[in-house]
């Protein structure tokens, strides 16, 4: 049976499904924005999209190409300053879900978007850095991480902690006084991982259709634990694929 969808589409659809209608979601550009807009166009019409450029409740009818795309301001319920979006909306815990990507995620959900290899002063690869991520990871009620899975991206320990997940395990977030619950779900092109409630280690709970446990293990830089009740996700529905592709086509047009 041949699939009529790509693993990136599956990843986007799986991420979109995580978003509950009526919640507020802090959205970064790229896959998170695609997933959030897909959710709003399908099962979550009242999803509130918040962009760090200061657009609250943006309702774009195509995918914005940058975090400060004019269509976000044009369709927002309110446009506020960048200090305000961080201080009044993110920091006090008004945002339900934060959506983060990254170059590396580790066993405990810590994320690196700063530098890889070498040391900080002389990195092998210099990445863009923190942006809004550290405070999104700290203050959103929960965090969804989306990242393609490989031994270079799913690592035992990130080279640099840009955004704090569960640190070294249980109790670390609480000890630091972080208010949000941290990364509740990590979605890759192979499946879904969730933190074990007691160890906080990321555990494979779902596979996408067609992916195998062996593939997931091979694409993980630590000894991956697989949930006893491992499940397989529903493939993208026709409706999901149609909307997703229309969104992408509309934004590629200009």
């Amino acid at each position, binding site marked *: 049976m041949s699939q009529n969808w790509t693993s990136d589409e599956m990843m986007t659809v799986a991420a979109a499904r995580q978003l509950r209608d009526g919640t507020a979601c802090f959205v970064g550009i790229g896959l998170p924005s695609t997933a959030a807009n897909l959710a709003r166009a399908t099962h979550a019409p009242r999803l509130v999209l918040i962009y760090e450029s200061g657009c609250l409740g943006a309702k774009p009818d195509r995918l914005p*190409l940058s975090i400060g795309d004019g269509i976000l301001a044009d369709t927002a319920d309110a446009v506020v300053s960048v200090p305000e979006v961080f201080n009044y909306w993110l920091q006090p815990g008004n945002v339900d879900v934060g959506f983060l990507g990254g170059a590396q995620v580790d066993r405990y959900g810590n994320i690196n978007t700063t530098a890889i290899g070498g040391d900080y002063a002389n990195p092998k690869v210099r990445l863009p850095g923190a*942006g809004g991520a550290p405070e999104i990871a700290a203050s959103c009620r929960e965090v969804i991480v989306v990242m393609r899975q490989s031994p270079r991206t799913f690592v035992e320990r990130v080279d640099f902690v840009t955004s704090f997940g569960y640190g070294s395990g249980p109790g670390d977030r609480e000890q630091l006084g972080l208010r949000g619950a941290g990364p509740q779900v990590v979605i890759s092109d192979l499946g879904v991982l969730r933190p074990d409630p007691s160890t906080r280690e990321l555990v494979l709970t779902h596979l996408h259709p067609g992916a195998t446990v062996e593939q997931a293990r091979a694409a993980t830089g630590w000894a991956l634990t697989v949930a006893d009740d491992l499940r397989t996700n529903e493939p993208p529905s026709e409706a999901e694929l149609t909307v997703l592709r229309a969104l992408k086509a509309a934004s590629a047009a200009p």
Partner: protein
Amino acid sequence: MAEIVSLAEGVAELVNDGDTVALEGFTHLIPFAAGHEIIRQQRRDLELVRMTPDVVYDQLIGMGCARRLVFSWGGNPGVGSLHRFRDAVERGWPTPLEIEEHSHAGMANRYVAGASGLPFAVLRGYTGTDLPKHTDTIRPIACPFTGEVLTAVPALNPDVTVVHAQRADRAGNVQMWGITGVQKEAVLAARRSLVTVEEIVDSLDPMPNQVVLPTWAVNAVALVPGGSHPSYAQGYSVRDNAFYQTWDAISRDRDAFATWMRQHVLDVRDGGEPGRERRMTGETA
């Protein structure tokens, strides 16, 4: 009261070698033309401050204007890396670049403190991350009422802040709208300020979500239509997403970069004149 000047005059008067300079604009209204004029006037040893360095700082860094960068996200938005920034950090080309790295929330609050005449700001930030290990301007602070420990960052007070806005009136009052980012704070935090605008008009009709900077809070205003290209000015232009993608290839290679900068920035003699930045667009498309 703000003086109406040409872009060349504004940069000559307000931006000095060794200054701490902030060019702000969050995706929208990035003052590219002013950055190019700083390159043409060959400013050196600048401490560049900006939340998202973007292509404009990639160009300033690649042309050797900067000795230091204070920032929170150094990528080409929607595309990938800033290659001139990476070349400077990873290989010290054309000169080594010292970096001071923050988060967006931290940088925004540093501008707020600067605009507020306070030496520092308090936030819930950086907790558990590796940033405080490498950035000395992130420190703990205890609440004098509850004892809770939070994070302090020092104020940013640039020597000069440059922003781009949609309009000014003839008295020098500045008006911008759409996504206005951290520009008000960056201007008020600075010792001096220069604003480039799309239009100078007789009077500023109010706009929804406008930010108005009164003329007495600004040093100089220069008319530079298209001065935010390849960024955009809502109501006047759209973001040139294709240019941001094109920049990836241009900036990967030192020679290609140098050639592009010569053709599109250095050899442009009539810097600051209307239409210049628009011509540049056409050539890169």
